[in-house]
């Protein structure tokens, strides 16, 4: 199956062959096993002006997420729920090939997949974010900035967003004479679970976890799957022009749940201790 030409990294023909030959033997260029993820480092509370923040490095991929909490009007069809929006932006400084300008389809997909994982897992207890029913609710905005690109932006951005939310302090607002007043006190943001996304790429018939940029540039397709703490699947996105058999998808579900649990304990430790 032909790969997509999308990537900006031009992989030399010989290197491509070398990668493919290694993969068939169950090895990877950087010495990792097929389902082994790169070292994950999380630092929290790195931006003081934000209500919550986290820097995540996954191998050489580096991202920062910041949470800003404000109030706003609820959505018309959900009057008794607070608002949570998650966005992601690939900054021009993130690689020699990133350029300023409106987000392209890849950046839009990234932002929407990260948002979907947090939203569909019901990580944030939006019912606890209502100040006046139908009128004033908390509005939580999570923004992820991509600082350095080396593959698997989906997972790095999703870990950063989750870590920032887990450490975010919810300001205590009260309504006085119909106006929102900040009491200068805060409580932890109400969360129910920790969603963890795991991205697996398919190169030929080999499936690998946490692809680097170089691996992404020769992959046929990928699947990003988000699981919650109970081991349920909450969000999935297949990307790339490749295909998957039902057996491959079942293998991905199993691996994602196991890997998800490992990574969830790292996120938990980091957000309790400030960094890992």
């Amino acid at each position, binding site marked *: *199956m*032909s790969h997509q*030409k999308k990537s900006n990294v031009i992989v030399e023909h010989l290197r491509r062959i070398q990668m493919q030959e290694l993969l068939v033997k169950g090895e990877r260029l950087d010495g990792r096993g097929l389902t082994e993820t790169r070292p994950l480092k999380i630092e929290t509370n790195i931006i003081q002006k934000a209500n919550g923040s986290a820097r995540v490095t996954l191998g050489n991929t580096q991202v920062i997420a910041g949470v800003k909490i404000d109030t706003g009007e609820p959505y018309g069809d959900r009057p008794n729920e607070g608002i949570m929006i998650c966005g992601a932006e690939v900054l021009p400084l993130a690689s020699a090939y990133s350029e300023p300008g409106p987000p392209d*389809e*890849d950046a*839009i*997909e990234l*932002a*929407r997949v990260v948002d*979907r994982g947090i939203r*569909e*897992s*019901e990580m944030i207890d939006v019912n606890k974010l209502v100040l006046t029913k139908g009128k004033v609710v908390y509005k939580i905005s999570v923004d992820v900035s991509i600082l350095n690109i080396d593959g698997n932006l989906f997972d790095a951005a999703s870990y950063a967003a989750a870590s920032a939310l887990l450490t975010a302090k919810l300001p205590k607002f009260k309504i006085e004479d119909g106006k929102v007043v900040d009491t200068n006190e805060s409580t932890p943001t109400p969360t129910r679970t920790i969603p963890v996304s795991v991205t697996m790429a398919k190169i030929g018939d080999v499936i690998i976890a946490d692809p680097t940029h170089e691996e992404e540039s020769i992959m046929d*397709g990928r*699947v990003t*799957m988000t699981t*919650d703490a*109970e*081991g*349920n*699947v*909450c*969000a*999935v*996105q*297949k*990307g*790339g*022009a*490749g*295909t*998957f*058999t*039902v057996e491959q*998808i*079942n293998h991905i*579900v*199993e691996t994602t*749940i196991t890997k998800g649990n490992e990574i969830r304990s790292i996120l938990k430790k980091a957000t309790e201790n400030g960094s890992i």
Partner: protein
Amino acid sequence: MVILGDLMKKQGIRSDGRKIDELRPVRIEAGVLKNADCSSFIEFGGNKIMVAVYGPKEVHPKHMALADRAVLRCRYHMAPYSVDERKNPAPSRREIEISKISKEALEPALILEDYPRTAIDVYIEVLQSDGGSRCAGITAAAVALADAGINMRDLVTACAAGKVDNTIVLDINDEEDKKGQADMPIAYMPNLEKVTLMQVDGTLSKEEYKKCLDMAISGCMQVNQLQKEALRKKYFGNEEEEEGDMN
């Protein structure tokens, strides 16, 4: 224990009267627009979607051309009057994402290497939307591409399954999509047995996930029969007795 809510009237019957594994009525017609190289129209429940294919043709802008293959471009767009509240006609982020994944769902079936330095444009216009419009759009686009005579490895057929009132059901409609627990749109190449689009919104256990995937694929197989019938009808008229299998 099954908890019955709004969406399940009684065990096994859904709010719109369908059974758990029943598709909405589907009608596909090939060759409906004169100017397009090929076109199709699909009614999938309340969805009404028009698809046109232009190409293989010269690539504009020229720098997008690829020396060894055709460029496939796909635009999924909803008409302002297609939903309850008027939709801004400018492409939304949702539409841009669906355009991308629809292209990626169709691309594996096309032998693009046969048309170097050209472009194939697929326009999916949702005139009325009723849940599952991306699946209906991909299904119709595959029919139009096949009708355009573009070399293909297989048809692509799409159908969603989901979880509604704790039950796994086939082909969820708008109401089930909004109030249900999970939605899993799947696109599938029925002869090659490969999944080309997979998304999930909502929570499914591991077992439910597998059940849902199997059910969506069985829906795809049913839709595939209708695709083949639509193509057969365009070329052979209403000879329903036609035995030949078009793949």
